């Protein structure tokens, strides 16, 4: 019964999406208002169907209806309520259903919020989005059907979700964030397709597109950060990023998404880079599909990947289809997007943006090649090879350092950059800040060249970021009777937002550089009463106990932490043993402070009561997460409409959107 209801909703979604795609394109070609209305209704119907299907699945999970195959696969009577709710996305079929839900919500949002100001493109945009929806509902209805009835006999209990996903609340937030990022990239993609089909790219395209690109990029940022945090808090190896293939897969669209956001600025200000922005958006979308394929097909070795399944080939087919459509569409229509004439110099704001794009795209290709090379090697050489952390660090660090430099130099440079005196002054003024960065690093004992260079660049960039970000506020008092600083900011919140994002990036950047350079660790076998020393900490092992919990057995060690004889509390690192799990899963105990983290992992428990304890101190880890939070807050600022946009949406004002086309920077 539940199965049939769920399958019914999916079928409804498939029909709505299929017809919506067809009607949308027809309405687009004919520029028919009635056709667009129908398409919008079908888009909303698709969203309703997806919400319904997910509601049915949640109901089945919560009522432990094991006659639904997905529930029989991931459900268990012993699993706590909140984990049952999250188990919707803990396994392959459910995660694709959840994907459908998010796509539905994005489509509904696009159909609702873009009703005005984007009419020229909306029919094509919705048609493209519904085309993607058609594929996903087809997937859910066929090879990845979570609602398939369980073949009899129906079990009375199930195994429960993967234990690794059970032991931290972050696992509840990380996947939805990542999906919101991944799926959201469909919207700018659909807009890019619409722009190519229309053969024009005006302000009514660019502004909504940037907003719809900003939102998923921000979700992706948060999702990637939460994944790293989860890895740090749960996996017990003391790190947050391992350059695992699936981590890389989420990183790829993030890189090109950010590149597109930046090239979009140039487009907005100078009316150039139109075709390039469209290409970047399309690559970003293709990379989300590629990433999903890598995660779900099981073709790469990864902690995150789901098991090998028939979904792989279907997804590859979809990726091929999308790639072919994109290439053909670009080849046919790209010449319709004509950039406005402008001159560009290397040492200018435009030049900095070009280099920014060059570095982001190079970084993306590097990560892509490194991630896929093992497949190439196996196919051509017949040998399995690994491309891992040492390689990626070696390659990515210089590129990141270049981006850091640009983050300082770029915003300081004037547009056009034709006045050498102006350019020189812009580059000289932040130099004292760079020197301060260098001195601070030296004072903290940094001696390696990369760290010193990064510190100097960071000092430079911090000064420029603060200077540029605060400029509207400082510019205000020059005129008498000006409004308050808030009003100055609200003229264009996106400008301040952008520099807040940069500030967050700087914080994270410095924290990553410092934490990876100054990590210290010690490891020892301890008997009760023994002490392990590391970086001023004394860690005394008091004893271990074995705790039996409903779905696991936990070995927990009591470790007293003190510095200079003063007690700093007690930490309880543990090893969890799940039935049917080969290796015990360690849960580290972390003591976080503003300066650094103390991280304890239990390596093993001996039958004589001794333990193997590993202690790691890492400076500034907390600032990595704080930096990301700042980035997300900055993004939120960027989403507040600018004064010009606010005027445009109030009927009384002169609609100046049309009057200031993409090249309205002069």
């Amino acid at each position: 019964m539940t199965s049939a209801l769920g399958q019914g909703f999916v079928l409804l979604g498939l029909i709505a999406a299929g017809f919506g795609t067809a009607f949308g394109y027809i309405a687009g070609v004919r520029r028919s208002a009635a056709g667009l209305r129908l398409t919008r209704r079908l888009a909303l119907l698709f969203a309703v169907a997806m919400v319904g299907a997910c509601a049915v699945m949640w109901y089945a999970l919560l009522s432990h209806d094991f006659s639904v195959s997905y529930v029989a696969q991931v459900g268990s009577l012993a699993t706590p309520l909140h984990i049952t709710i999250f188990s919707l996305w803990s396994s392959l079929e459910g995660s694709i259903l959840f994907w459908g839900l998010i796509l539905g919500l994005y489509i509904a949002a696009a159909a609702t919020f873009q009703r005005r100001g984007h009419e020229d493109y909306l029919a094509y945009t919705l048609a493209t989005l519904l085309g993607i929806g058609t594929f996903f509902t087809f997937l859910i209805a066929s090879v990845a059907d979570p609602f398939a009835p369980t073949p009899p006999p129906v079990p009375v209990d199930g195994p429960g979700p993967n234990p690794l996903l059970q032991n931290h609340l972050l696992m509840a937030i990380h996947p939805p964030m990542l999906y919101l990022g991944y799926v959201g990239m469909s919207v700018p993609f659909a807009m890019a397709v619409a722009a190519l089909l229309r053969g024009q790219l005006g302000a009514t395209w660019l502004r909504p597109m940037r907003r719809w690109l900003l939102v998923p990029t921000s979700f992706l940022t948060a999702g990637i950060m939460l994944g790293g945090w989860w890895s740090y808090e749960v996996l017990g190896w003391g790190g947050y990023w391992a350059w695992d293939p699936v981590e890389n897969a989420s990183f790829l669209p993030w890189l090109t998404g950010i590149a597109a956001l930046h090239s979009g600025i140039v487009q907005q200000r100078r009316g150039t880079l139109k075709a390039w922005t469209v290409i970047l958006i399309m690559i970003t979308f293709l990379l989300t599909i590629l990433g999903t394929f890598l995660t779900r097909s099981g073709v790469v070795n990864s902690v995150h990947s789901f098991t090998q399944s028939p979904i792989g080939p279907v997804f590859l087919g979809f990726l091929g289809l999308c790639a072919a459509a994109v290439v053909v569409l670009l080849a046919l229509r790209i010449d319709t997007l004509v950039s406005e004439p402008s001159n560009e110099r290397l040492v200018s704001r435009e030049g900095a943006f070009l280099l920014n794009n060059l570095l982001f795209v190079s970084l993306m290709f590097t990560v892509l090649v490194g991630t896929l090379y093992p497949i190439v090697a196996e196919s051509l050489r017949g040998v399995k090879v690994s491309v891992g952390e040492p390689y990626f660090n070696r390659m990515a660090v210089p590129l990141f350092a270049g981006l850091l430099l640009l983050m300082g130099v770029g915003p300081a440079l004037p547009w056009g950059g034709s006045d050498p005196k102006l350019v020189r002054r812009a580059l000289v003024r932040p130099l004292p800040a760079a020197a301060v960065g260098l001195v601070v690093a030296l004072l903290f004992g940094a001696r390696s060249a990369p760290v010193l260079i990064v510190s100097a660049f960071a000092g430079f960039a911090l000064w420029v970021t603060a200077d540029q970000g605060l400029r509207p506020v400082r510019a205000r008092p020059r005129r008498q009777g000006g409004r308050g600083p808030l009003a100055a900011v609200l003229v264009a919140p996106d400008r301040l937002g952008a520099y807040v994002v940069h500030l967050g990036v700087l914080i994270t950047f410095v924290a990553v550089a410092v934490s990876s350079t100054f990590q210290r660790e010690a490891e020892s076998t301890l008997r009760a009463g023994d002490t392990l020393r590391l970086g001023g900490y004394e860690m005394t092992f008091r004893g271990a106990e074995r705790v039996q919990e409903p779905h696991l057995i936990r070995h927990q060690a009591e470790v007293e932490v003190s510095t200079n004889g003063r007690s700093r509390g007690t930490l309880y690192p543990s090893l969890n043993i799940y039935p049917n799990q080969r290796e015990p899963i360690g849960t580290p105990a972390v003591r976080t402070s503003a300066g650094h983290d103390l991280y304890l992992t239990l390596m093993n428990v001996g039958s004589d009561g001794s333990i193997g304890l590993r202690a790691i101190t890492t400076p500034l880890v907390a600032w990595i997460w704080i930096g990301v939070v700042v980035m997300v807050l900055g993004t939120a600022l960027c989403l507040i409409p600018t004064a010009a946009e606010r005027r445009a949406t109030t009927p009384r004002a002169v609609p100046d959107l049309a009057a200031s086309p993409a090249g309205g920077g002069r």
Partner: protein
Amino acid sequence: MRRATALSGLLALLALAAPASAQEPDTPPRVTLPPAEGEVRPGLGVETSHELGDPLGRPLSGEELDRAVAEVAADIRCPKCQALSIADSGAASAQAMRAEARSLLSQGYTREQVVGYFEQRYGEFVLLEPRARGLNLIVWAAPAGIVLIGGLLVALRLRQRRRGADENLDTYLRQVEQETAT
């Protein structure tokens, strides 16, 4: 052929053995680290010396040994985990491999010899950084190649577009001044 029929009967036995798998391991697998010097029972162990050859370096100890172990461990993939190195992983086999690296380095084998030993045993897969030779050169040359090609394209574009001076003030700032002045 007789054996084939007899063995195929084993499949039935396999099914019978299944309940054994439901046994819960309730003590974590214990890692047996190599016993300290002198505790080894004479003659026990595995012969590695004839495959490794003679030690080419000098025996390391103390902090120097710690550093060398950390360097080697960072480049070796933990066989049981996914993308982690044996330096990062807490898995039992990673601990054993670190101990082996420590023991070999303290005997005077060089870092290259130790890495080579792991590669010889586990295959190239165990190296987290592929060796720069043959087809692997793709992965080493690609990043530089991409930056070069991209840089060339940027340079071409700049050359095309450099035409006369164009003075442009920061129009945004002008806008702010106008907005806040009213």
